[in-house]
């Protein structure tokens, strides 16, 4: 007890860590009871996977996926998994490490033959899946595998697959792994920062904040008990310690981001940067429209497509200084009066180009146009000036 009073701040920090650690462990155990504290993992040989769709190759324990059929590649492990309840996490190494929230794990159980279940990666978690997120995970799994989508990347490498049991130790390791997950700059970064994995079970901010405040409360109580005044410098040190702990994690994230920025963009011209980014295909498409297809002087361009589509919203930026209107799913009467071009980025239900009458038709309405440039990424039509449109009121 004497040492407790001799080093009051250190004791408070330690006590708070023990209390908080115990409380959080109990909380985790209540959420999903773990039968054991530790347990063995089960590695999965990469050779046990077969291509069901698409193709690729295997090299020294690495599975490379680089061929797609109708935009998909499916790898499957037909050996399945006995007593899958034993396992809570599936860990793996996936490269390139980029956002791939469209990479789902699929599995089906022998007990429910014919019904296939899927679960996608968490928004920014690229190295593990929490299998308990899916209610159907359990029992004998007859087959499982991954579905890759072509537009995520042309080539993926997968290795180091391993099932981990749902032990207490693994729960904590998974939480720490969530905290250290790399959070790449994306559209949400300007609005909020996750601080590791999206929807992590136990946010680091909450844990560190609770630890610091609890420590300071215990320290104050100890000093009150000793009838000594609190030491402002020590309090400041603990306040900064908590902040710096989280900042260290954030700086680590920023340094990874800096490395990524350096690798992808450093030393390149603006055009080369766009060609290196995630929007490269669309950038090339819009540059082609701007430089080769559209006249040099600013034109009216009406974009049709899904209302909230990212590329639709970005069309004015890439086609500037062309005068782009992107606020409608179907053509409007005023388009013909103003003249210009219609750009259709996605097939729109009910809107068709009629080759015979050279019109865009939807319902009873039509707009006279000439196809100018047709590409899988979008179709460009010029509004004919000879009129003949018919749009119902």
């Amino acid at each position: 007890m004497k040492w407790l009073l001799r080093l009051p701040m250190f004791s408070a920090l330690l006590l708070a860590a023990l209390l908080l650690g115990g409380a959080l462990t109990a909380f985790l155990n209540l959420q999903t009871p773990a039968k054991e504290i530790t347990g063995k993992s089960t590695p999965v040989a990469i050779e046990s996977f077969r291509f069901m769709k698409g193709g690729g190759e295997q090299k020294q324990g690495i599975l490379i996926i680089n061929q797609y059929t109708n935009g998909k590649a499916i790898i499957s492990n037909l050996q399945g998994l006995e007593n899958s309840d034993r396992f809570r996490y599936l860990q793996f190494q996936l490269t390139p490490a980029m956002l791939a929230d469209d990479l789902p794990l699929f599995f089906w159980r022998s007990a429910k033959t014919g019904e296939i279940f899927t679960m996608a990666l968490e928004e920014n978690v690229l190295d593990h899946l929490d299998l308990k997120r899916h209610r159907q995970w359990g029992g004998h799994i007859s087959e499982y595998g991954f579905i890759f989508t072509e537009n995520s990347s042309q080539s993926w490498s997968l290795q180091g697959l391993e099932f981990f049991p749902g032990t207490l130790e693994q729960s904590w390791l998974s939480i720490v792994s969530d905290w250290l997950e790399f959070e790449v700059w994306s559209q949400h970064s300007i609005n909020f920062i996750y601080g590791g994995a999206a929807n992590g079970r136990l946010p680091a901010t909450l844990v560190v904040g609770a630890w610091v405040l609890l420590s300071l409360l215990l320290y104050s109580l100890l000093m009150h008990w000793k009838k000594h005044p609190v030491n402002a410098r020590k309090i400041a040190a603990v306040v900064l310690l908590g902040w710096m702990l989280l900042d260290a994690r954030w700086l680590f994230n920023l340094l990874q981001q800096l490395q990524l920025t350096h690798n992808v963009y450093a030393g390149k011209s603006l055009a080369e940067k766009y060609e290196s980014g995630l929007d490269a295909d669309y950038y090339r498409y819009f540059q082609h429209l701007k430089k080769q297809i559209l006249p040099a002087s600013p034109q009216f361009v009406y974009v049709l497509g899904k209302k909230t589509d990212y590329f639709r919203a970005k069309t004015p930026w890439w086609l500037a200084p062309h005068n782009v209107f992107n606020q409608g799913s179907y053509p409007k009467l005023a388009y013909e009066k103003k003249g210009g071009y219609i750009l259709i980025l996605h097939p729109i239900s009910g809107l068709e180009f009629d080759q015979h009458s050279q019109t865009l038709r939807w319902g009873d309405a039509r707009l006279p146009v000439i196809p100018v440039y047709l590409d899988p990424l979008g179709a460009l039509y010029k509004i004919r000036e000879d009129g003949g449109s018919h749009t119902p009121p």
Partner: protein
Amino acid sequence: MLILAYLLPWITGTIWLVWLESFSAQRQQVNLPRAVGYGFFLGYFICSAAIYCVYAIFGHLSATMVTGLLLALSALGLFLSWQKYRNGWLAIPVKAPVIKRQDKWLLLLLLALTTAHLAVAAYDAYNRPLLPWDAWTTWTYRAKIWFLNQDLSPFIGAEAWLNTSNPGIYTIPAHGYPLIVSLIQLWPVMLQGQWNDAVAVFPGLLAGIALILALYGQGRSLGWPALLAIAGVYLLVSIPLLNAHLALPGYADLWLGGFAGLGFVALLQWSQSQDRTQLLTGLLFLGLGAFIKREGSLWLMMGLLFAIMQVLSWKLLLAMAATAALAIFSGYSLLNLPWLGQIGYADGAFYLPRLGAITLQPQDVSFAVINNLFSNSSWNLLYFYLFASLLLVLVHGKQRARHSALSFILLLTTIIATVFFLSAEGEWVKDSTAFGRLLLQVLPALIFVLLLNWQAVFHQPAQPREVEKR
């Protein structure tokens, strides 16, 4: 040429800030970090206004004329400052602040971490093409159109656009957003003569440097130890959401953080030092903030209420609040201010100048708010510390600091509650798209309140440097 583009508005603004500070009855020497920090934002505002005025008068964009105008304004500001200071000339301190020996390592660590944050953000801002959504749909998009057309093409609503055949008139959904931030982004590319995303938005990164200089200067002006002021700088620059806006510049929230955020810092400083120049600076910056983003009007209202709360007693304030409540229930609660528009409450809606009606529509956003403040990493531990420090200042704090800190947080909470808990805007909290950015606009003031509380609870009252007798 680019260095000139980035520095000239900054220098102009700094000179005029020095002149403004010369009116302080309490000051002895120029608070350089504060003048440089506030001067940056004032200078870029002047620069934007100059671009607009030159275009309005001559009908075309001219980098040369704007440069000439800024140089002339700088010369005039220098002359006026020299006149005001000629008894003591511009006494710019060159001495480093006194640091206790045992504090030196901590100070170096804080400076190193501050530099690391700024350097990493600068590398991203310089190298990445434009990323954030509203930048390429609105703020920077307008600058790009203006630069490519070499004019200030107007942006109008969709319906009006469909009815015009003028190819020089454009449309965007947010066509009503103020022009200043887009003009700021236009300025460096105008001078460079070539469009480049990073060049256009890079002043956003410089705004981060200006924010920390201003915060440091204000802390030191109250006689706070250099270590505390530097700690405040580190806390500010290591806020992850601010880092994101520095590394991915292009949004207006960071700029409003300079105008509204630093405006509140100046008001808080005035509440402690009674330096009326800071009251004037605060209200000026909050007023300019109304031209940065629509929320600026909200902050201006809050600034005026804050200032009133500092000079009136609680009893009088309660009487005024009771009168306001009575007016609302009696139906006399909506005023029509000339040029500004309606202000007040009527028929289930609040009316604010430039913002229009905010219809009452209660929202259950408690979980989203708690998640934003305490659970995700946008703010590090800011709100844990802020609320803990408010509790401490209630119990132990000095009266003046307590009054300022509490009235600021009370007003801020009322605004947050009205906007997000009681109106349709609450939807923006649920998907976390606007809540964080609204708080970013007052972030410097939140850090300042935290330091104020610390100083009020743990330190003997220091003699403000500027109150020292000559």
